[in-house]
């Protein structure tokens, strides 16, 4: 039994809470990445700059999640503290590209 297993045996985790927290984070990531795509299109970003915009936006949302939602204690709400930065960080990428290209075309008169 390694240390991680021993830790979980002493203080077990609630699967229901984990699932609900995951759902909340997933929803925020999806909705915000769609809007990031809209603004990337309005700004007329092209190639790498668009993806850099996505990375910047994702980091911003992670900061908000860390500060506002987890109140600086992510270890209490996720299996590991780094999950608040990494979980679902790429789920919104496809919807980002979709709205990015759509609004890039729409704004171009």
């Amino acid at each position, binding site marked *: 039994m390694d240390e991680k297993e021993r830790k979980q045996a002493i203080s077990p985790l609630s699967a229901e809470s984990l699932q*609900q927290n995951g759902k909340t984070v997933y929803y925020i990531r999806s909705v*915000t990445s769609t809007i990031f795509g*809209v603004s990337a299109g*309005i700004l007329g970003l092209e190639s790498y700059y668009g993806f850099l915009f996505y990375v910047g936006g994702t980091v911003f949302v992670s900061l908000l999640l860390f500060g506002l939602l987890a109140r600086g204690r992510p270890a209490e709400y996720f299996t590991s503290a780094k999950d608040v930065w990494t979980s679902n960080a790429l789920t919104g990428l496809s919807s980002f590209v979709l709205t990015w290209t759509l609004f890039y075309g729409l704004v171009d008169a």
Partner: protein
Amino acid sequence: MSFVPTVITVFSLVLLFHAGYSAYEFSHYVKHLAANANATLPVDIVAETVAATALFAFGQVLGANKLKSVAFAKWAKGLEREGKNPFASLEQRPGFMNVRKLREEYASTKE
């Protein structure tokens, strides 16, 4: 979602729509009216777009469901305060139900 986050989100979407419309108008101006056809997007439209996006993310995170503690002990404590049983799935097992006894009880109440 409560009142304040909804207001923030709606306001940010209005701002984003306005920025998008401005960007469209600017693109139209550059293409059809201006002599100098290679202008970049004005800084106020850029600022409006970025502000609207940041505000939207802020509103969404503010209005999201509260996270729940993943420690089983805390979760169970909260559930028991509500009068529910966190071990219900272990304690109520249909496989171990005494059907004959329940049937007798049912028959006795029927009379």
